[in-house]
C-alpha cells in the first residue's frame, strides 16, 4: 500500500532545513515533492535599503559556504554598470579566494556525503583537509567564513607573500590524489552506495536546466569559467571536468577531480600573482544609472545576478538566482524508483544550499 514519508525540514541527513515528501510503495519511492522557504530572510528587499558599501556586506550573508561567490558576482555586476575594470592583481586575488572557497565547499560536501553513507573515518579524513583550506583563508583574510575580501573596484586585502601558501597546496594535492579520490572512486562501500543511484540523464539535465557539478555529471559540459571566462580564468587555462553517467558516483567524481583542478589553478595564480594596485577606484564608489547581469561559477554551479542602479546611493534592484535554486527541484526525478534508503545520499549528491535558495 502506498504511503507518504516526510524527510525534514529538520533532519540529521540535511545540512540545512528543507523538506522532501516522498510517496512510497513498500520501500520504493514512487514520487517526491520538495518544500523550501524555511530560511527566507528577504535579502533582495534588504539590499534596496543598503548603500553600495553596506550592500556588499549584506550580500556576503546570502550563503555561509560560498559567501565570496556572492560578493564577487555582485561587485562584477556593479563594476559592469559603472564601467570599472579592476586591476590584474585584484582579479587574481579574487580568483584565488574563489578557488579556495570551491575547495572548502567541495571538501565540506565530501565529508557530509561520506557521513550520509556511514563512512565516518572518511568524514574525519576529509574534514581534516578542509581545516587546512580554512586556515589558509583565515591567514589571507582574517576570517574562516565571510571573508570580507571584495569591494566594488577591487579587493580589500592583499596576499603579500603568495609563496607561503604553496606548501598547503602540496599537502592537499597529495591527500586528494592518494586518499580521497581513490576512496571515493574505487572503495567497494562507496561504489555500492553510489554507482547507478539517483540517475539524472543528459536529457533530464537539459529539461530541468541544472547547473554546475550536477549538470557536468550528466554529460553537460557547462562551466562559466570556461564558457564566459571572468577574473583570471582565461589566463590560467581552466579545464572543466565532465562525466556522462549521471548518477551519484559521477557527481562525486566530478567534484573530486575539480578539487585537483582547483589546486592547479591556485598554484598557477599564486606563482603568477601580478604586481599593482588592489583597487581601481579610491573612496566611495559611484554607480551611475544602469543595469547589468552577471554569471560566475560557484562551487554548486552557475550563480546569476541582475543588478539595477538609478544612480543613487544604493542599488534599486538586486536579483539573486543561486545554483541550488535550479538544482534542488531536480532531486524529484532522481528519487523516482529508488529505495528509501538512498534518499539521504541522493539529496546530498546535489549539494543543496538552502540558505542560498531561500535568501
Amino acid at each position, binding site marked *: 500500500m502506498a504511503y507518504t514519508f516526510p524527510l525534514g525540514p529538520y533532519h540529521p541527513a540535511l545540512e540545512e532545513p528543507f523538506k522532501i515528501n516522498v510517496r512510497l510503495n513498500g520501500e520504493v519511492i514512487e514520487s517526491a515533492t520538495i518544500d523550501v522557504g524555511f530560511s527566507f530572510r528577504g535579502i533582495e528587499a534588504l539590499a534596496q535599503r*543598503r548603500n553600495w558599501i553596506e550592500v556588499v556586506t549584506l550580500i556576503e550573508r546570502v550563503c555561509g559556504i560560498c559567501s565570496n561567490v556572492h560578493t564577487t558576482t555582485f561587485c562584477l555586476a556593479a563594476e559592469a554598470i559603472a564601467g570599472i575594470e579592476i586591476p590584474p592583481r585584484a582579479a587574481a586575488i579574487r580568483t584565488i579566494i574563489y578557488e579556495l572557497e570551491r575547495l572548502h565547499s567541495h571538501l565540506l560536501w565530501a565529508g557530509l556525503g561520506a557521513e550520509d553513507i556511514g563512512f565516518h573515518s572518511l568524514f574525519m579524513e576529509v574534514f581534516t583537509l578542509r581545516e587546512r583550506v580554512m586556515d589558509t583563508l583565515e591567514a589571507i583574510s582574517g576570517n574562516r567564513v565571510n571573508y570580507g575580501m571584495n569591494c566594488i573596484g577591487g579587493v580589500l586585502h592583499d596576499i603579500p607573500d603568495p609563496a607561503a601558501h604553496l606548501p598547503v597546496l602540496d599537502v592537499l594535492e597529495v591527500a586528494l590524489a592518494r586518499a580521497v579520490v581513490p576512496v571515493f572512486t574505487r572503495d567497494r562501500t562507496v561504489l555500492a552506495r553510489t554507482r547507478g543511484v539517483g540517475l539524472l540523464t543528459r536529457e533530464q539535465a537539459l529539461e530541468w536546466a541544472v547547473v554546475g557539478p550536477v549538470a557536468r555529471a550528466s554529460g553537460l559540459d557547462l562551466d562559466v569559467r570556461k564558457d564566459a571566462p571572468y577574473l583570471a580564468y582565461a589566463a590560467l587555462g581552466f579545464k572543466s571536468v565532465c562525466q556522462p553517467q549521471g548518477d551519484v558516483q559521477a557527481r562525486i567524481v566530478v567534484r573530486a577531480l575539480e578539487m585537483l583542478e582547483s589546486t592547479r589553478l591556485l598554484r598557477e595564480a599564486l606563482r603568477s600573482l601580478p604586481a599593482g594596485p588592489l583597487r581601481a577606484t579610491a573612496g566611495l564608489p559611484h554607480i551611475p544609472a544602469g543595469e547589468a547581469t552577471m*554569471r560566475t561559477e560557484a562551487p554548486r554551479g552557475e550563480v546569476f545576478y541582475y543588478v539595477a542602479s538609478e544612480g543613487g546611493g544604493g542599488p534599486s534592484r538586486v536579483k539573486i538566482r543561486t545554483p541550488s535554486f535550479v538544482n534542488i527541484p531536480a532531486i524529484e526525478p532522481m528519487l523516482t524508483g529508488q529505495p528509501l534508503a538512498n534518499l539521504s545520499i541522493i539529496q546530498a549528491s546535489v549539494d543543496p544550499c538552502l540558505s542560498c535558495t531561500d535568501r
Partner: protein
Amino acid sequence: MDPDLPGWLAALPGVAAVAQRAQALWVEAPALDPPAMARAMAERGIRLAAITAIPQSPDGETTILYHYVTPALSINVRTRTRNNHLPSIAALARPASWSEREIRDLFGVEFDGHPNPVPLLRPAGFAAGMLRAAMCGPTAPVQSPTARTTP
C-alpha cells in the same frame, strides 16, 4: 555570438527592440507572448536561467525580465504584466516554475496556467505579494556612505 541571434530575437512575437550591451542582449518586448518565446527559446536550445520581477507601484503593474543564457551570452527579455497577470511558461520551461511561484509570493503577480501555483517562500498566514509595497521603485538607503558620524 551567433550573428543571426539579434534578428531572430527581434522576430519573436511582441518584441519591439533588441540592443547589445557588454556581454548581454537586452530585448524590449512590452507585448511579449511568453509561451511563444519559451517555445522558441527551447527549440533553439537556449536555457532559462532566472526571472526577475520589479514592481512599479504598490497596486500597479510589474516589470518582468526573463533571463536566458547561451554558454557565453545572457539574453534579457523585458516585458510588463497585464493587470498584474502574465501567462505562465512553467509547463514549457521547468526552471520557470519556482521563479513564478516566488514572484507570486513576493509581488502578487499571477502566472495564469501555472501547473502548481502553491507558495514557495511565503510562510503560512502571509498573503501573496508580501514584499510588493516594500520593494516598489528605488528605496533611499537607510544610511548614506558619508552619513556616519564618529562618536
